């Protein structure tokens, strides 16, 4: 079944066309990889799906419901979670509280939600999520004191707390060393099959093998789509990356 469909998405910034006529389909349970050199429009596409940006043309449909003009928080509540290329942790809050923020969203109806945010039920759920990503031991620490690798995992835990139907991961391996990357990939692989994921990643070597399907972009357009090995060998893809000096 189709979880997400993006049709003919176009986004311009002044004279620059960041995304042009992009069609994307995400099926339930798959791990879709989105690749492309810098400036290809991958993060912009993510922002269009998560709601941070609105498209100039085209539409975004989630489980058959058009969400093109819905604000990000409404999309989050419908089950679209995302991580950020530049980690956006709640620095002054503890690791546990970071996850609790995502568990509160159902109670955030109305203007004065005054229920306690750390009710025992929620704490348990939060701790479980932290255990899944291996951060349970640091639950009480302030997020700003954590190294980047752990913050990336925290973002994943926070996203999972939304019980998302679609998880968007924006360059999760960015800035991580080899060991941290492997650890994070382990966490993501454990989610495979249960959670539908779209992964944007610059580190093609490590990310491509874990994907069920791949889409390649360049200069705002989709240039290849299909099985990872096929996309990897696609001549246009190789050229796009070679133009950047990257080996794919």
């Amino acid at each position, binding site marked *: 079944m189709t979880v997400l469909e993006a049709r003919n998405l176009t986004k311009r910034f002044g004279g620059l066309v960041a995304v042009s006529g992009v069609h994307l389909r995400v099926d339930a349970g798959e791990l879709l990889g989105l690749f492309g050199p810098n400036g290809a429009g991958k993060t912009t596409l993510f922002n269009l799906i998560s709601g941070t940006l609105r498209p100039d043309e085209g539409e975004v449909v989630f489980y058959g419901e058009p969400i093109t003009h819905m604000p990000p928080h409404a999309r989050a509540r419908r089950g679209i*979670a995302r991580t950020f290329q530049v980690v*956006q942790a709640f620095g*002054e809050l503890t690791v546990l509280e970071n996850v609790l923020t995502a568990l509160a969203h159902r109670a955030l109806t109305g203007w004065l939600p005054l229920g306690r945010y750390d009710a025992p039920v929620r704490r348990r759920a939060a701790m479980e999520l932290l255990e899944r990503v291996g951060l349970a031991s640091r639950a009480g620490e302030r997020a700003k004191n954590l190294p980047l690798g752990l913050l990336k995992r925290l973002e994943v835990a*926070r996203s999972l707390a939304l019980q998302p139907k679609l998880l968007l991961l924006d360059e999760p391996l960015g800035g991580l060393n080899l060991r941290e990357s492997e650890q994070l990939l382990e966490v993501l692989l454990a989610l495979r099959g249960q959670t539908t994921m779209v992964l944007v990643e610059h580190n093609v070597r490590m990310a491509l093998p874990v994907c069920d399907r791949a889409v390649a972009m360049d200069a705002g357009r989709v240039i290849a789509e299909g099985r990872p090995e096929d996309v990897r060998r696609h001549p246009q893809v190789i050229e796009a990356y070679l133009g950047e000096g990257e080996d794919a």
Partner: protein
Amino acid sequence: MYAVTVFTQLCIYAVLTLSLNLITGLAGQVSLGHAAFFGIGAYVVGVLTTHGIPFAPAWLVGGLVAAGFGLVLGSISLRLREDFLAIATIAFNFVVVAAFLYLPYFGGAYGISGIPKPLGNAGFPLLVLATTLGVVWFHERARASDLGLAWMSLRESEVAAEAVGVDVRRFKVTAFVLGTGLAGLAGGLYAAYIGVIRPEDFGFPLSVTLLAMVAVGGMGTLWGPLAGAFVLGGFAQAFAFVHNYQLVLYGLLLALVMRYRPQGLLGKLG
């Protein structure tokens, strides 16, 4: 009794700093015009009670009117980036004081005098104390609630808060409405307590003082703003010497805190 006077004044400062803390400490929205809402509450009570309306309804109306203006400012804050917002709040403070100076019924530069104090000299301080305790209770309840968590998350990262389902716009407005409404209530108490109010009592220097109290004490916590109110406020009250140098001291304090210990004050730092 002098001690009671000082204590009452400190309690009013406490309500003011806690109310500012909701907006700036918890929700991270800079308000450099908080004194204006204090003034709105004070003037509503001043005008109404000197025209025969009893204190209780006048007081509530004062809070509501202040909250109403807070709603306006909150809506404005949705369109403005942080430093622009700070400027807008300053401008707002000035516009409000100018309104007190120039509009009819507010007494111009002489302000309003002869504001009656309900409950007498023994009872009124108790009302102030009760209000302060009520505000403390509400502050703590909010801070531990989903609302408080939503505020703190949007303070730390608006984009991440949106991504976890927090309606950032709605809760920014809520912070302003609640914070300014409480400041209005403080204003009503102040008007009745002191009996005479003038436009310059609610000017930008007071807003700076309040921000200094919250910033120095430690934003976002309970004891931070309270400590700021009691220590800085108490200082000024107890020592006339300090009172004369109040502005230069608060100004320097603010500058020094920002220069050397801004961490933990506002979430979006660094």
